């Protein structure tokens, strides 16, 4: 059984999705989706444990040996990402029957669960596969599922946002496809490990440089790296609330992983940073993105749009850590994958709870909510503190590594810029707190409108985890550091 685990993380949700179509019953399909998510979590946790104790696992699909067959390759890096995805899915899916902002008749909820499962299957596929073309296929499965999920948002702007994401996403995906084609042309291989061996021989050619440019640009579009982020705020704002929670915490993480994988495993850090100097481009773009997006977040009146811009800024943190090409920097990036997933999912859950009770996303309408929904808003405060990077929360851990990486390089100025941009988070987090706690609620409204447990419990699991993993970092930092060392080829 355990030998089949690498393929099981993909196959389980992939096969479960059509089964959901057959079940159709609203309650049963929810339980089914939940069970699949938890099973996936169990499997990926096992895989991570396996990888940490015995080293990378190679699984040959259909028994065909690589580089001819498709290889699923699990190492510390992707096992970590799989756990993040499965974990967030396991926490968010239970809250889905609340159907917040969902434009779907209750009896057709099974379609929503089907799309969610396909989305997870795609993400798992991107993560686990060791085959470049397979990456494209799963990338498109994920994207198609997410166009559908976003398009299900209530209001006429949701399909519009989904459509503009579809256009950008397809262009990005096709770029990746072109890049893979060019690599294949030069090496005759699609297996990532094999490509890593063959590419250095041909890396001086213009074809490979173009291939790299196409792949990086394509992935960056899907990731929403500044300045390729325009689709992201719209998509996150108009998507159903729980889809925003799920997507912001998983899709961006997996696609960032893909970028890391392409740079460090396939093309190799020496080529990317030593020859092409991607860092010269990525570092300033990350910094500008962090500031522009954080400033944009400050001026938003819609709380979801605020969080969406904050996500773009946080993606800037991750690419910044990557572009510093050091163990500390990459550890910071990878640990921030995990940390940001927790806090952003938690904050989107808070937004979902507010919408559930008040049917609004406007910050101005949240007057006095601090007293009317004390537990929900306490979650916002804790999650927000983590965004700022207060010690005792996960945000601090990520920031510590990023700033440490900058200082180790002797870049005091960049270190100061990183902390300065995290201060902008204080402003946009506190804007909401100001309204919720200092302005009195509108007259004649119910006193207590606390969110139902079905939303409150997942929210607090996520927010609680931001505190727990802010203090107990043995697991997160340990794994992230091992992964960073593996990627950079540095022995511990």
């Amino acid at each position, binding site marked *: 059984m355990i030998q089949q685990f690498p393929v099981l993380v993909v196959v389980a949700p992939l096969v479960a999705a059509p089964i959901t179509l057959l079940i159709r019953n609203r309650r049963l399909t929810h339980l089914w989706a939940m069970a699949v998510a938890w099973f996936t979590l169990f499997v990926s946790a096992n895989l991570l444990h396996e990888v940490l104790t015995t080293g990378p696992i190679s699984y040959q699909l259909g028994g065909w040996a690589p580089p001819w067959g498709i290889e699923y390759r699990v190492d510390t890096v992707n096992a970590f990402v799989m756990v993040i995805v499965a974990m967030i899915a396991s926490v968010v899916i239970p809250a889905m029957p609340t159907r917040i902002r969902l434009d779907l008749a209750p009896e057709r909820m099974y379609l929503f669960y089907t799309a969610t499962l396909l989305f997870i299957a795609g993400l798992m596929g991107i993560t686990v596969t060791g085959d470049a073309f397979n990456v494209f296929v799963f990338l498109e499965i994920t994207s198609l599922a997410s166009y559908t999920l976003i398009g299900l948002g209530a209001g006429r702007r949701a399909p519009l946002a989904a459509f503009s994401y579809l256009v950008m996403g397809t262009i990005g995906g096709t770029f990746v496809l072109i890049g893979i084609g060019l690599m294949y042309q030069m090496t005759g291989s699609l297996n990532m490990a094999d490509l890593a061996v063959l590419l250095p021989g041909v890396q001086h050619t213009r074809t490979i440089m173009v291939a790299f440019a196409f792949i990086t640009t394509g992935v960056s579009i899907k990731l929403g790296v500044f300045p390729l982020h325009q689709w992201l705020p719209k998509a996150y704002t108009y998507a159903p609330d729980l889809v925003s929670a799920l997507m912001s915490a998983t899709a961006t993480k997996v696609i960032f992983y893909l970028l890391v994988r392409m740079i460090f495993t396939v093309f190799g850090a020496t080529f990317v940073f030593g020859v092409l100097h991607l860092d010269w481009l990525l570092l300033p773009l990350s910094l500008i993105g962090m500031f522009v997006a954080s400033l944009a977040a400050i001026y938003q009146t819609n709380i979801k749009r605020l969080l969406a811009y904050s996500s773009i800024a946080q993606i800037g943190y991750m690419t910044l850590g990557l572009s510093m090409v050091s163990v500390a920097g990459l550890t910071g990036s990878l640990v921030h994958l995990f940390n940001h997933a927790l806090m952003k999912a938690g904050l989107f859950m808070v937004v979902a709870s507010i919408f559930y009770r008040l049917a609004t996303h406007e910050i101005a309408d949240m007057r006095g909510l601090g007293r009317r929904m004390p537990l929900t808003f306490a979650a916002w405060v804790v999650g927000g503190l983590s965004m700022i990077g207060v010690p005792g929360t996960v945000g601090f851990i990520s920031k510590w590594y990023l700033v440490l990486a900058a200082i180790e390089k002797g870049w*005091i100025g960049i270190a100061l810029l990183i*902390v300065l941009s995290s201060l902008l988070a204080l402003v946009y987090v506190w804007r909401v707190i100001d309204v919720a706690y200092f302005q009195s609620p509108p007259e004649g409204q119910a006193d207590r409108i606390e969110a139902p447990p079905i939303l409150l419990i997942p929210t607090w699991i996520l927010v609680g985890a931001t505190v727990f993993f802010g203090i107990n970092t043995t697991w997160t930092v340990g794994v992230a550091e091992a992964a960073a060392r593996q990627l950079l080829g540095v022995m511990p």
Partner: protein
Amino acid sequence: MSTDLAIILSFLLPTVAGLSTALTGRWPNARDSLTVLWGVLTFGTVLTLLPVVNAGGRPGLVLWEVLEGLPIAFEVEPLGMLFALVASGLWIVTSVYAFGYMRGHHEENQTRFFSYFPLAITAALGIAYARNLFTLFLFYEMLTFSTYPLVTHHQNATAQRAGRIYLGILVSTSVLFLFTAIVWTYAIAGTTEFTVGGVLAGKASGWPVAVLAGLYFFGIGKAALMPFHRWLPNAMVAPTPVSALLHAVAVVKAGVFSVLKIVIYIFGIDFLAAGSYSEWLMWVAGFTLLSSSVVALKQDNLKARLAYSTISQLAYIVLAAAIATGDSVVGGGMHIAMHAMAKITLFFAAGAIMVATHKTEISDMDGIGRTMPITMTAFFIASLSIMGLPPTGGAWSKWYLALGAAETGQYLFVAVYMISSLLSIAYLGPIIGRAFFRPPRADSHHPLPEGMKEAHWLMVVPLSLTAIGTVVLFFFANNVHDLLAPIAIGG
């Protein structure tokens, strides 16, 4: 009681106090008596550590390792011992005073107020006991955020604005400068542990050390070094007990305490003084010291005048830290205790005046000495301590501060100390003069009642006690000095 237990209890008890207050909110009397009980227990627990530290022991424990080389760990050394005693001791008095004030002033949301109050004490004790920069930073931020609801207690537009400035300055400076400085220190020294003699000597030199020192001095915004002092006068919108305990004792003293601790145990006073790395900070501190005294002269609101006086007195300690000699840091440490005792009395008195006569402006306080003789006598005694005159504790700490400056030949800064003392006479003296020697004003909006009218006894007793405390400290200054003596030779 084992020292480990004592350390843990001294955190746990205030936290429990916060919880018990939140739970017993419905019965104000039970709630308030319990708060005092927890306060006494906390102070008692902290006190059991004193003999150990006096005997040269450094009790401590490691709670949890967050990152490699970054544990949440505690160790009680003399300076921390003193700060813990001051914070936990004055908490009891302030609690009693706060009951009188909050009830006399009919404040709302008292339960929330009394729940967050002890949390701030937990944070202050955490800062006092911190064994490394990370732990210090953790509790430093906790102190900022736990006092935010206290500062914004009234929840109106003024409080909101003050809250923004309070949080804005304190969090910005700490995140921007202090955090960066801590990571930098870690990158240079590989540790953030407070170590006797410092951790930087031999590992860094030249301009980075001077910059690092600047990052620390400005990064600790709670020390209110200009230009990051504006939060302090703004935070005075808080109820007076908050101003008294937090902005004369816990918060600001946590700031200067951190500065001293970092100078002694991270830089090492010898290292810092030998390289003159902090010379530029002496000028900043000296400027803050004098200019805030001058600004204090111009304030008519009593609490605002006291706030600027606090900024000036904090700069005394920061200047001492920048001078970095044995006597100056001991003097700085002593001044934490002396100034805390005196300033809390002054704030208590200001609050008592406000509750009893609704007066807040100094120009309106003519003749108040006859109406509130006990309060104003206490005010007078505490003023002496701020001015640095015997028989009050302030005389001793100022003596050591000046001595420290003189030892290094910084006569200019000796003069700064002296001029500032004169200025403090100029801004505190007139208040006493008006109170005792002028007839009450006829055109006042809040005319003084006939005969004596003191505030509630729950307010008068605490302020009398602290006034007596300033005198007691004069006679027992030796004990404080002995406790602190080890830090003069590096810890």
